[in-house]
């Protein structure tokens, strides 16, 4: 199929429709309102439902109701709006409902600003709402990847009967890149949905809920959810390596738009003979833990540098995973400030000074021996 130039927000919307989404609920918020605009036009064309709620709280409950029918349901918002949906996200996770959400992140906390940020990592990856649950979280770094992950999100939501969230910083929503859509969307077979509420004519009535007043039943449900999250860890970790090789002196860990900025920094450093690799997690939950540990403990790597548009949120996971086997360092800008490649380069140069490593140490050692000889 031919490539079309599309804004991230519009590409995300079209990808959802291609993946069979026929119910979209929303409340407008910058920087993702184009998704709603696009859906308002396209949904009637495909016999789908477009509904603008009275608030994000309303939207969350519309999702809950619609997801219980077994249809592919979808909503998008930005940081403060996603906060308002947390109650129903927790309910949907508890009731094991497949639903897909997109958060085009802006700076927070509070009403914050409208410029790009990655400061909803904790909210997305560590719960956000109450109770023992996880979201499957994906983070694209190009518009094509946003399209591909969007379609995958609907599949994974059905596969695990769990809410899936794709997060992108504001740039992912606002920029345009050429994208390709498959002529016909295909996905591996999925189990039926006998739990769906489709009208009880001719069968016993059934209930979808997250209320378990008997503690034993609630515990059972929580462990059932836990088991699913363990399965996700086994099957759904996704990541990309960029110029990761045995020559690396520094390993950068970064995701989303920030990872692309790091790529440019890495290319420029390479021109100056400094080898830096990039580990880009694509799934933030499950986090590609073993793969990161392997890359971070390569022989020549002097330090691991997490680069985020937040105040060291993902960095906590990096520290937990690397366990001090390699020094872990952090660089971040937030509040809507996007670091330039030069800022990343400066950080790397600073680390090379801080961690001269064996090579340089030997070098200076041999120098001093010579000096002694003289």
């Amino acid at each position, binding site marked *: 199929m031919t*490539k079309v*130039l599309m804004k991230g927000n519009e590409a995300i919307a079209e990808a959802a429709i291609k993946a069979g989404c026929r119910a979209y609920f929303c409340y407008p918020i910058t*920087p993702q309102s184009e998704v709603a605009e696009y859906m308002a036009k396209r949904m009637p064309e495909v016999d789908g439902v477009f509904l603008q709620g009275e608030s994000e709280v309303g939207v969350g409950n519309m999702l809950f109701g619609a997801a219980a029918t077994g249809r592919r349901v979808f909503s998008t918002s930005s940081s403060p709006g996603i906060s308002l949906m947390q109650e129903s996200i927790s309910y949907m996770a508890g009731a094991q409902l497949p639903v897909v959400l997109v958060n085009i992140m802006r700076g927070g906390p509070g009403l914050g600003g*409208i*410029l790009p940020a990655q400061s909803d990592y904790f909210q997305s990856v560590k719960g956000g709402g109450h109770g023992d649950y996880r979201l499957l979280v994906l983070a694209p770094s190009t518009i094509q990847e946003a399209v591909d992950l969007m379609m995958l999100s609907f599949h994974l939501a059905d596969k695990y009967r769990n809410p899936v969230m794709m997060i992108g910083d*504001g*740039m992912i929503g*606002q*920029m*345009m*890149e*050429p994208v390709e859509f498959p002529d016909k969307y295909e996905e591996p077979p999925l189990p039926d949905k006998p739990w769906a509420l489709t009208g009880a004519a001719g069968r016993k009535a059934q209930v979808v809920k997250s209320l378990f007043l008997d503690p034993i039943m609630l515990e059972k449900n929580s462990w059932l959810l836990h088991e699913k999250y363990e399965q996700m860890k086994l099957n759904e970790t996704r990541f990309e390596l960029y110029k990761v090789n045995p020559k690396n002196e520094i390993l950068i860990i970064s995701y989303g*738009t920030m990872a*692309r*900025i*790091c*790529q*440019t*920094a890495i*290319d420029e450093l390479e021109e100056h003979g400094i080898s830096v690799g990039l580990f880009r997690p694509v799934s933030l939950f499950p986090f590609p833990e073993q793969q990161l540990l392997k890359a971070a403990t390569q022989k020549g790597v002097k330090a691991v540098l997490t680069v985020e548009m937040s105040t060291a949120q993902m960095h906590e996971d990096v520290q937990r995973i690397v366990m001090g086997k390699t020094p872990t360092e952090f660089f971040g800008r937030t509040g*809507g400030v*996007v670091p*330039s*490649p*030069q800022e990343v380069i400066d950080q790397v140069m600073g680390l090379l000074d801080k961690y001269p490593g064996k090579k340089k140490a030997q070098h200076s050692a041999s120098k001093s021996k010579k000096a002694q000889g003289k």
Partner: protein
Amino acid sequence: MSQYEVTFAGFGGQGIMTAGQLLSYAGIAEDKQVVWIPSYGPEMRGGTAYCTVVVSKTRIGSPIISNPRCICVFNRPSFDKFEPMVKAGGLLIVNSSLINSTSDREDIRTLYVPANEMAIKAGNPKSSNIVVLGALIGASEVVKYDSIEKTIEKKLGHKKEALESNLKVLKQGYELGRKAMKKKAKV
């Protein structure tokens, strides 16, 4: 030239975003990688609207460009804001119909294009963005003339008059850009 970046800046209604998108489409037609980024953030009415396009033969890393190789400024506030940001050795294209200022920078090439006058003369006052786009391609060869011509034909094919006037000013802008570069080359 593995990667080229262009910022178009002016006020709302000058076709800034469209110029960037046309360039992007021409890049796609040449099988290149492209990214188009709008000005995104709080802006004041009557202030600047701008977009940046990256055209590259290889995978594009950072979509955020602090110092583009070329900047096309369509109004005075954009001149003031963007003239210092052109990358050294780069190109500044100034819409001299609306901007009286000239650049003092000696580390860049500057091309003055009376875009509004040329557009009005050609009978389509709205096409000043296409004049500048033509000049940009003539001076930089970021994409081939054929590619941009075909892109505009595709977009405007259904509006015969608009297509004709736009192609006319595109050619005029292109010739202006090419001539200016030839002159510089001789020096």
